[in-house]
């Protein structure tokens, strides 16, 4: 395919977007780089094409559409709910495959009925792919950040530990390392004996004053990002967290949960069973999960093509609930990926909290799959 051409099935895609009542939007190819690096982290830097404006502002070639579409939504302030669709080129440095390729997708912003919006995003991705790849069996893998968060909370860990685990969700190696630390707590080391004494005495004011005077003396006060109080409080929290030990039973439960992988139609019962057997109250997260499954049934999606994998998540702090991927049955290429990102719009500067769910279609991979037909 010459790169200047749109994929040959673009017409069908645009038809689908219209039929699914979306507003098609475009965004500039050249984008400010800050929001992408800020949201996705520095690791993205080596995977995007960066350049600079004459005045030194960092710019990049659009590496994806979600952030530009959300920024545009915030700027135009046209209110919610909105269903946006896009189709255009994105640019990434990849070891394999072209550096410029097409993506299309839908971003559903501001729909208050979370379960229905989630179900619709999955159904849209699945439905569009089924049309582009007729009579090819597809599978959906689904995860849920909120269910994991509920399990971690229900285990009764201190807030700091909950945050650590939740933050690592989706990164199995990091999560394993944390579980290892929870199994074998290490005392806080390397602390100045005087500070340790102050800490033990619980005299926060004095500790803060001590930190403050050192900061003054060493010239760190003027521009300090972390205040003496913040440092003192975290020091105390760290000591508490270091003493936290998760007993073997709770660790086993967490590990057992992370290995859950089953057909979506059985997932609600399995999660309820797990919660019961473990004596954990998972409450609203499970209710939300069940409501989503019910909403999928109402739309008439075939649940048998869907698998719930408890450990499936994305280690970025703006994902809040559903995550999903569509592949060909037995295939590994992700044809569509999506999820719920209720925190993203606020992080990007929206004044109100705007719930959001969406997905992106990898048109180059879809094209390869069509050619293999």
């Amino acid at each position, binding site marked *: 395919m010459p790169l200047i051409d749109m994929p040959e099935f673009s017409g069908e895609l645009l038809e689908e977007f219209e039929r699914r009542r979306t507003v098609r939007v475009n965004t500039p190819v050249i984008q400010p780089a800050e929001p992408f690096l800020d949201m996705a982290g*520095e*690791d993205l830097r080596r995977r995007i094409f960066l350049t600079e404006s004459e005045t030194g502002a960092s710019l990049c070639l659009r590496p994806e559409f979600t952030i530009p579409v959300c920024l545009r939504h915030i700027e135009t302030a046209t209110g919610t709910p909105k269903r946006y669709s896009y189709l255009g080129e994105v640019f990434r440095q990849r070891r394999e495959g072209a550096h410029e390729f097409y993506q299309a997708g839908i971003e559903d912003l501001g729909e208050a009925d979370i379960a229905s919006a989630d179900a619709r995003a999955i159904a849209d991705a699945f439905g569009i792919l089924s049309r582009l790849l007729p009579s090819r069996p597809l599978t959906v893998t689904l995860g849920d950040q909120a269910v994991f968060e509920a399990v971690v909370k229900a285990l009764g860990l201190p807030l700091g530990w909950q945050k*650590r685990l939740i933050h690592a969700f989706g990164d199995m190696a990091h999560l394993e390392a944390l579980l290892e630390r929870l199994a074998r707590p290490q005392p*806080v080391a390397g*602390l100045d004996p005087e*500070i340790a004494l102050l800490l033990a005495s619980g005299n926060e004011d004095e500790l803060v004053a001590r930190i403050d005077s050192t900061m003054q003396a060493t010239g*760190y006060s003027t*521009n300090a990002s*972390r205040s003496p109080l913040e440092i003192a409080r*975290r020091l105390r929290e760290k000591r508490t967290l270091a003493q936290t030990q998760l007993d073997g039973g709770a660790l086993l439960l967490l590990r057992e949960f992370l290995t859950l992988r089953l057909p979506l139609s059985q997932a609600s019962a399995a999660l309820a069973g797990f919660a019961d057997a473990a004596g954990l109250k998972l409450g609203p997260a499970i209710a939300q999960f069940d409501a989503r499954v019910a909403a999928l049934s109402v739309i008439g999606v075939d649940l048998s093509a869907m698998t719930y994998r408890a450990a499936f998540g994305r280690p970025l702090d703006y994902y809040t609930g559903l995550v999903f991927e569509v592949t060909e049955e037995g295939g590994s290429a992700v044809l569509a990926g999506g999820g719920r990102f209720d925190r993203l719009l606020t992080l990007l500067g929206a004044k109100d909290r705007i719930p959001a769910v969406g997905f992106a279609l990898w048109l180059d991979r879809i094209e390869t799959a069509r050619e293999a037909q």
Partner: protein
Amino acid sequence: MTLTIALPSKGRIKDGTVEIFERAGLGITSIGNDRSYRGRLEGVDGVEIAYLSASEIARELAAETVDFGVTGEDLVREGMPGVDEKVEFCARLGFGQADVVVAVPEIWLDVETMADLGDVAADFRARHGRRLAIATKYWRLTQQFFSRQHGIQLYRIVESLGATEGAPAAGQADIIVDITSTGSTLKANHLKVLTDGVILKSEACLVRARKPEHNADPRVEQIVRAVRAVTGGSDG
């Protein structure tokens, strides 16, 4: 075919290399006068020396415009992706030692390890309205260490080409990733290295670009063997 060895044009690494090469029976003579940037290796036919600035040597190795180079491991690892496929670290020369480290303000009494830093980074945006900022010239090493080895994603790199140790007190960044040999500059700027914050223990290395034609060239093996013989025989 001429083999080219790139050496730093001045400084400690140049002097140390000339000395090691001499002990290895590979004396270096200048072409023309003493201040020339070209030289020749005695004892092996058709080997030229090109004197380059230290930071260019990694680049020329990656581009395969030179066959060997002597430079700090930090510059090579920072300078090219997929480094071990592109070059071979033939010998560690025992000088130019310096560590690439993660250092934070001493007064961050609660931060001793990368795990502590991960906690602080995760919360940073909520507390300060921006991500944790790291001043460094080692973009690649920092990303690899933070993202891949420690699962820390949420931070921003602020490019710093010099006087990096001053960045935290000046408010340009919160912490730094920089090279240190004695630690005295860090100390003078009230910074401390995290207990598991050593990213790389670097020193001057003889580095070979992995060119296919080297396999059939006995001079390549001869040079590597001679240098290893006087540096304790260890390879990279």
